């Protein structure tokens, strides 16, 4: 039985300096490619003996999962152009506080021989070199875990109420191969109870922008590279129910509020103004009655705007506006029996719309038809109240849908089918996440990668020992993909996320009002000169072979993750 880390490997509470001593590999080189990389790390890092960490011999996740992460203190909240974003002060405080805190180590990994040895050994199925190449990321993961807080309590009162990892730390870091870390962080406000519920981003120049919709009716616009606040858009009077940049004009932002109106904002010149407000109250059916909007979407050519509403006197509406003329074109109200929770236009077919509702149905409409009855093409019964729906494609065929239910299950559908071609329950997901209990698992969203695989953002809301992880759907199977280690300042229930396609940078935001940009790959490569959001992620191309090799290795060793999980 393999133990976790020995006590000598743990980074203790005596840090030398918060700044990394590692020499930085040149930007663009993948960690494995630089032959000197590993030696840089070894040579310059003092080995730290810590007496404070007592390693437990049991495999059942004695080490806590409340993670630390390496933190690029330079990039946070600084405004080179003179605009001081409100978040900057908070970030500075964060930084100062973190430097003082004994258990928050900003030092880069301290890698000792003992951790290195097994991964560098030459008898790994004869693929020694490749595995060694891949080892820096896993070992870094390991060491990020060195920055973890002490486990809060070893006393377990009642086993079944708890949550934690189902395998030891080393196993965890090897299984989740992609080393995400926080590259940028900001908080929306210092008030309690402001949730960030929606995010969207665009990458088109001149400025890559991120928009965040909050639970106080306000929208924050950030510069994406620096995560610096640019503006706050006020105008809605109720919780924000969606933010979306227009597809063809990325400087135009659409936002929706629960009070039943949608607003179009022009972000080209300051002050940002609301160009138009769309309202559903002009509907001839129940006119004047507020139809609370729960979601909206824009078609791929920016012609039609569709919003879904809550149920009003038995009718759940889908409202349609012509964007340019701002005319309310009409609505559907026969196809759903309960609140509509998400509407999504097809990414390529401008007239195809998918809608999801609390009644458990996924409806697919062809909007070219005149009547609602004729427009309803398919109804897919997910048999459980749905929270999100998303289109995705495989090999350029875009007729697939992913949906998340309120039971925290995931279903994958082909739109012409009668039942999902893959379905993952909350328990399946918690198993792949390597968690003990499925009672705290929640799903955030499903993202598509450039190689057609799906990434599922999921987490555990267990207070003492939560987590945030990415799972990958590959060949219709769930696989672990990445750990997103949350520090004490990041821990929150994530409600919204966005994946930047090329770089695989992940944007997350949640109930504590914290917005994070997670970057895969080597933390040292992030500098505030480079545009890390636009860079092509090293893990994008390298990762697949890496994972296969790791799997080969683990299969060859006859210790698959599943069996290890049960406590070797």
């Amino acid at each position, binding site marked *: 039985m393999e133990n976790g880390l020995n006590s000598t490997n743990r980074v203790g509470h005596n840090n030398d300096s918060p700044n990394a001593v590692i020499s930085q590999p040149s930007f663009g080189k993948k960690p494995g490619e630089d032959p000197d990389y590993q030696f840089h790390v070894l040579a310059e890092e003092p080995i730290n003996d810590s007496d404070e960490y007592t390693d437990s011999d049991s495999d059942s996740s004695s080490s806590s999962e409340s993670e630390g992460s390496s933190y690029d203190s330079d990039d946070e909240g600084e405004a080179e152009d003179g605009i001081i974003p409100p978040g900057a002060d908070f970030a500075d405080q964060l930084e100062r506080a973190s430097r003082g805190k004994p258990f928050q180590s900003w030092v880069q990994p301290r890698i000792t021989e003992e951790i290195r040895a097994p991964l560098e050994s030459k008898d790994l199925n004869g693929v020694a070199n490749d595995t060694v190449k891949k080892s820096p990321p896993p070992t870094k993961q390991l060491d990020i875990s060195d920055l973890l807080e002490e486990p809060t309590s070893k006393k377990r009162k*009642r086993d*079944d*109420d708890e949550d934690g990892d189902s395998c030891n730390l080393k196993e965890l870091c090897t299984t989740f191969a992609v080393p995400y870390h926080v590259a940028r962080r900001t908080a929306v406000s210092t008030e309690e*109870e402001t*949730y960030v*519920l929606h995010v969207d981003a665009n990458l088109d120049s001149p400025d890559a922008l991120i928009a965040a919709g909050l*639970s106080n009716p306000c929208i924050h616009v950030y510069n994406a590279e620096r995560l610096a606040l640019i503006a706050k858009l006020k105008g809605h009077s*109720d*919780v924000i129910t969606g933010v979306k940049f227009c597809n063809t004009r990325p400087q135009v932002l659409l936002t929706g509020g*629960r009070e039943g109106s949608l607003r179009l904002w022009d972000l080209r010149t300051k002050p940002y103004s609301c160009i138009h407000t769309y309202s559903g109250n002009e509907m001839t059916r129940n006119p004047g009655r507020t139809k609370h909007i729960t979601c909206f979407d824009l078609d791929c050519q920016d012609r039609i705007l569709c919003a879904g509403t809550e149920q009003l006197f*038995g009718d759940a509406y889908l409202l349609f506006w012509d964007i340019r003329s701002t005319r309310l074109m009409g609505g559907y109200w*026969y*196809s*759903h*029996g*309960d609140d509509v*929770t998400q509407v999504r236009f097809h990414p390529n077919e401008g007239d195809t719309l998918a809608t999801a509702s*609390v*009644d*458990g*149905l996924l*409806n697919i409409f062809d909007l070219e038809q005149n009547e*609602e*009855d004729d427009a*309803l*093409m*398919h*109804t897919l*019964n997910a*048999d*459980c*109240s749905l*929270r999100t729906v998303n289109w995705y494609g495989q090999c350029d065929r875009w007729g697939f849908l992913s949906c998340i*239910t*309120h*039971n*925290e299950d995931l279903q994958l559908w082909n739109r*012409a089918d*009668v*039942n999902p071609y893959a379905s993952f329950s909350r328990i399946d997901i918690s198993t792949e996440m390597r968690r003990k*209990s*499925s*009672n*705290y698992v*929640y799903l955030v969203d499903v993202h598509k990668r450039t190689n057609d695989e799906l990434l599922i953002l999921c987490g555990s*809301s267990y207070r003492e020992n939560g987590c945030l992880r990415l799972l990958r759907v590959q060949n219709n199977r769930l696989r672990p993909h990445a750990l997103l280690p949350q520090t004490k300042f990041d821990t929150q*229930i994530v*409600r919204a996320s966005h994946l930047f396609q090329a770089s695989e940078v992940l944007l997350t935001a949640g*109930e504590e009002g914290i917005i994070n940009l997670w970057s895969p790959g080597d933390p040292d490569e992030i500098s505030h000169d480079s545009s890390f959001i636009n860079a092509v992620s090293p893990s994008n191309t390298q990762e697949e072979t890496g994972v296969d090799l790791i799997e080969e290795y683990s299969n060859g060793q006859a210790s698959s993750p599943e069996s290890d999980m049960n406590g070797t």
Partner: protein
Amino acid sequence: MSSKVSKETLYECVNAMLHHSQVKKRKFLETVELQIGLKNYDPQKDKRFSGTVKLKHIPRPKMQVCVLGDEQHCDEAKANSVPQMDVEALKKLNKNKKLVKKLAKKYDAFLASEALIRQIPRLLGPGLNKAGKFPTLLTHQESLMQKIEEVKSTIKFQMKKVLCIAVAVGHVTMTPDELVQNIHLAINFLVSLLKKHWQNVRSMHIKSTMGPPQRLY
């Protein structure tokens, strides 16, 4: 998952409730409901509390299920005296909204064969959707009666505007054991979907339709 409601309390309350229902017998079969009062929960901001829970014992035995089947399923349904309709019968409705609405009102749930379920939007229009009774898929792999059992045991729950939610968990002619099992399952499942688990629960009661509520927590 351990529960803040002990088995003793459960049995006590269930027995008390059953006793009441015996004392004053009603002319209909009373349903037993689990009522949960929530707290520390903001319905505007927090995630919606909604979904389905599958119970071990059928809580509503009088639920009417209709099979919309292909030949094989229709034969099976006839053999088991389950109401059924085939494609021809559906075509006769001619997408008439009123007739479809009537059909939806007549039954509590529908099951449909694969071939048929695809055509529902074309044959019937959105009438079943609106009624919340769109059919569940019925494959040839499972037995019809089994699927019907499954459908009858699955309960939807949803928290609307008020911070309170009620779920049907049984009826008064079930044995206490069965009721306790169902209630225990329902409690654990529902609490696991809440953000703060037991911190979000203010109170819990079980109640038969006409009887007084019995407090569990």
